[in-house]
């Protein structure tokens, strides 16, 4: 069984070395690929210096495009499962084993969720997560406890589908759309660290427009999409 860990990285010079070294030393059973999304800092140099397996995008594409590059790579090389993790060190690869076990039970997508057995706190950050969870429940009838989690496993079928199509970002609206289309999605309890260094992508203004986009896509657009 071939498993690929996809690590999209944009300006992660402070974290990338730690994350990839950890991957290589502790989890040699998984293959990995770093997708450098046109970083302006020395992310690429660090990876080449350490001889990491890296794909350099010449221009910044954004997470959707970068992650899709990773899936195209996985599709091309015939991987059975692709794992999406962040380059900022908040995802612990320890949990990949649990998630894989679930995926092998026949689920198409397995989400590493912080809130399967744990309760979701009532913080402003989680308000957005709750709203999306509610929207997914209304339109699909299914519960996705941590829809914004960036740690997911996709099986071979999903790798191919994500690699080929437009509007298949690694985001909650795609999950919701696929759930509606009968794809099986399951969650596995994980814990996440705070990001080690650097700044988070989501500012307040960005969060608002992100939420707006997600709600419109899940509640309205997904009803009209065709697979």
């Amino acid at each position, binding site marked *: 069984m071939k498993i690929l860990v996809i690590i999209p990285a944009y300006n992660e010079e402070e974290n990338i070395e730690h994350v990839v070294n950890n991957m290589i030393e502790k989890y040699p059973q998984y293959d990995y690929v770093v997708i450098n999304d046109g970083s302006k800092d020395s992310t690429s140099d660090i990876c080449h210096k350490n001889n990491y397996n890296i794909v350099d995008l010449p221009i910044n594409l954004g997470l959707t495009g970068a992650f899709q590059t990773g899936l195209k790579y996985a599709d091309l090389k015939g991987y059975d499962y692709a794992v999406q993790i962040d380059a900022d060190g908040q995802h612990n690869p320890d949990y990949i084993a649990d998630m894989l076990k679930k995926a092998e039970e026949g689920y198409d997508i397995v989400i590493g969720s912080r809130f399967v057995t744990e309760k979701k706190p009532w913080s402003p950050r989680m308000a957005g997560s709750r709203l999306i969870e509610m929207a997914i429940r209304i339109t699909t009838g299914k519960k996705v406890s941590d829809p914004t989690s960036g740690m997911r496993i996709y099986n071979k079928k999903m790798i191919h589908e994500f690699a080929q199509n437009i*509007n298949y970002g690694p985001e909650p609206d795609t999950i919701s759309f696929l759930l509606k289309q009968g794809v099986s999605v399951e969650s596995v309890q994980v814990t996440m660290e705070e990001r080690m260094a650097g700044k988070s992508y989501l500012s307040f203004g960005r969060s608002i427009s992100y939420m707006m986009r997600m709600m419109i896509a899940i509640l309205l657009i997904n009803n009209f999409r065709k697979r």
Partner: protein
Amino acid sequence: MSIALRVLLIVVSVLSMIIMMRKIRNSKFQIDYSIFWIIFSVVLIIIAIFPKIVLVAADLIGIQSPVNMIFLVIIFILLVKVFYMNIQISQLEYKVKELIQKLALSEHKDSEAEKNKDCRF
């Protein structure tokens, strides 16, 4: 606001929404780009259903005919949209240029490497 104008606003908004959805359905349009048009259409529909909003706003600014208020708002929104699209075009052009140059340079590097290989033998 006349009934005819209100109906027209609703019809045009609904039509543009339908066209948008069909484009997305046929995988010809990115969801991210449709959000603006969806919100725009919804706002027009709300204005058509509750013309009171426009009347009050027109009164506040001192515009006599509420229809002019609608025109003003639409023109303003579209102006902003054109402005942002212009920025996007500029960024796209820059990215394409960057890509072309990178591709050409890497091809040149490849052919140079091949030539060097030929020389050795």
